[in-house]
């Protein structure tokens, strides 16, 4: 069974001396991909081979809710404490976290396109240039490869840069710097240099942004040794993860989502920092474990409402930490429910879901009553047309169907 499982600090509160073992749990990605699947489950998965039978089954008379971005505060989603705090939008929460860290530590600086005078293309850095100056909130030319490299070079000397990619997809141009320098310099220098940089930006499928601006970079970056990856989904965890990422001595890639920036929620007034390696229990349950992150969390919660009405009790976990996986929380849940459904926005091939499936199979195979089902986006470039775009991403109705099939 779980011979390689290393206990990850999940239930302990975040401590500032949280050491990142720079050889993260190899359980996440080693081991072979389990290709044997029961055919009854295969049809549920979102893939390029879309059977007409399935199409008609999901085209139910009721209107399909495809825009699952919460536009009003949904109390069932609130994972914050019940203390009165203040309400804000997710991008404001990111800004708050950023501002607090910049005030706390003069080595923290931001660099990216239009982050300074323009205030950030998603307003995450609005007002910061006026407050901290042009050098600390640096407007770079459109040269991702070199300004990412510049940030990494600055991090080698002890500065803590936050490198913003205006869209995660643009960071493909900086892949060499992120992979070879950001990820590996700590190792190749024999531990001499630390790279306390944060690389952040919005990614994911938006609203008809086109193929090149709808990419899910977490698929590509997950193999880079030496980096940590986290994805935020609520204002609460956005601020907490931003602060944790900045304080971390390791390079962290923080994935935001284009459609989640205007989420409104209540967050505590007092300062808090979240753990970079912990998953979030969104909704405890008994029948099935649904693992998700970022925008898909909301599709899952939408589906959860329907499932509850139908008598199911799903346990929803927002994995948050994409690398390394919080196998402690996930394992506890798997041992309780014995069924796993992964809902992700990555493509079918080589995404976070694929790695997570492998990790769970390797570690908790004996606890599973059914093969893991992974719902992912289709392996296609994201179309521009709205209806086509909807169908490349996992929709709540598909999640409901998958749970029903899984719990048979």
């Amino acid at each position: 069974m779980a011979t390689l499982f290393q206990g990850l600090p999940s239930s302990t509160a975040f401590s500032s001396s949280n050491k990142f073992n720079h050889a993260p749990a190899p359980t996440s990605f080693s081991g072979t991909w389990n290709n044997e699947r029961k055919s009854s489950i295969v049809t549920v998965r979102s893939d390029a081979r879309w059977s007409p039978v399935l199409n008609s089954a999901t085209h139910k008379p009721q209107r399909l809710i495809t825009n699952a971005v919460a536009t009003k505060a949904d109390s069932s989603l609130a994972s914050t404490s019940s203390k009165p705090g203040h309400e804000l939008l997710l991008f404001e929460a990111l800004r708050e976290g950023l501002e607090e860290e910049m005030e706390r530590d003069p080595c923290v600086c931001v660099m990216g396109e239009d982050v300074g005078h323009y205030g950030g293309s998603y307003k995450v850095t609005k007002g910061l240039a006026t407050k901290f100056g042009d050098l600390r909130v640096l407007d770079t030319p459109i040269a991702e490869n070199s300004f990412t490299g510049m940030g990494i070079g600055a991090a080698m000397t002890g500065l803590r840069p936050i490198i913003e990619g205006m869209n995660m997809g643009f960071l493909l141009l900086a892949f060499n710097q992120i992979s070879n320098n950001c990820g590996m310099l700590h190792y190749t220098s024999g531990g001499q240099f630390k790279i306390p940089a944060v690389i952040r930006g919005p990614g994911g499928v938006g609203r008809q942004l086109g193929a090149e601006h709808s990419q899910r970079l977490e698929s590509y970056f997950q193999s880079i040794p030496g980096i940590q990856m986290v994805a935020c989904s609520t204002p609460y965890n956005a601020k907490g993860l931003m602060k944790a990422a900045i304080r971390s001595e390791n390079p962290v890639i923080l994935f935001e989502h284009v459609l989640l920036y205007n989420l409104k929620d209540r967050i505590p007034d007092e300062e808090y920092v979240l753990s970079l390696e912990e998953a979030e229990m969104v909704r405890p349950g008994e029948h099935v474990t649904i693992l998700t992150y970022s925008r898909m969390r909301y599709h899952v919660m939408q589906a959860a409402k329907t499932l509850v009405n139908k008598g199911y009790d799903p346990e929803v976990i927002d994995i948050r930490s994409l690398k390394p996986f919080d196998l402690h929380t996930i394992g506890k849940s798997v041992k309780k429910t014995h069924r796993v459904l992964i809902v992700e926005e990555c493509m079918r091939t080589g995404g976070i879901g694929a790695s997570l499936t492998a990790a769970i199979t390797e570690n908790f195979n004996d606890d599973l009553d059914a093969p893991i089902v992974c719902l992912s986006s289709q392996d296609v470039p994201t179309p521009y047309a709205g209806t086509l775009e909807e169908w490349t991403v996992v929709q709540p109705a598909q999640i409901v169907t998958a749970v029903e099939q899984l719990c048979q």
Partner: protein
Amino acid sequence: MALSRIASSSHASTLLKPLSAALSIRRLISSDSTVPLTIETSLPFISHKCDAPPRAVDTSASELFSFFRDMATMRRMEIAADSLYKAKLIRGFCHLYDGQEAVAIGMEAAITKKDAIITAYRDHCTFIGRGGTLLEVFGELMGRICGGSKGKGGSMHFYRKQTNFFGGHGIVGAQIPLGCGLAFAQRYSKEENVTFTLYGDGAANQGQLFEALNMAALWDLPAILVCENNHYGMGTAEWRAAKNPAYYKRGDYVPGLKVDGMDVLAVKQACKFAKENALKNGPLILEMDTYRYHGHSMSDPGSTYRTRDEISGVRQERDPIERVRKLLLAHDIASEKELKDIEKQVRKDVDDAIAKAKVKNKKYIVQSAIPCDRRTWLTILFFTFIFFSIRK
């Protein structure tokens, strides 16, 4: 321009030379003298959008002497690395710097250890220049824990944090934006230090160089980009890869200087000039006209794209160590015998370092296998033995 101050008395010293050698009479200039000498560079500097520095370089006998010793060490180290590679003790990639020593040494003479240097994969000598030891070099090349990066990096990944040497990078041109970042950090913390970012004529065609130049010029970063032009990007001659091989001019709005990279004094002068300039006016480019005797790496013979005559011609006419040797002899700072002794000593140092590095470090093996130190382990074994023998 006048050469050294002792020019007038050189005639006298030539007569005295055999006598002084025989009787070991103190020379006019001893090899540890710090009395300033002024020597002219053999070639003028060629500038682009700036005023060239003067050809007269201030140096001293002891400095010239140290140049000789350090360059001889580097040369010997690289030759030894060649043999080790052929003996399969060094594996993977091995890019040797022999012929280019003047660039590393001249640069160090002009700057402090607070200034940062970052270079590409031809970094063994740069590491030595920044204070690395021969043991660390050979240890790293042979993958031992005593190596500079604990054996985890290899030939292309030498770093030395305490003396601001930032490596050691395998991907061509990727160190240039990093260097820009180092300069950015220097500007951010308002230190009066500069960053020397070295790259080759092959990397000079990388887009990220121009991106970095733009940013450095935009924000007046104290970055000095040094193109070590050894005229061949692996197997491709510069005129076959670059439309404009005048690399010192390619910064366009960034001033540049072309330097004879085989003349250690010229390099020193250029770097000194660059440092002063960068702190005031922002980035500049230095093109070091240099040459490598070996091929691009150990898997490249180095003779398929250039003639052996060319290589031996450069070795005869422009070798940096020979130049310094001639200077030392001409100014009577050292004798032939003394210089030969130094070379012998250097050879010995290198051989000693290799021998030391070759010893398999047993501690590493024990530590990785057993989670406690050897003494504890032996104690446990001992008591286990006692326990089982009592049980019987």
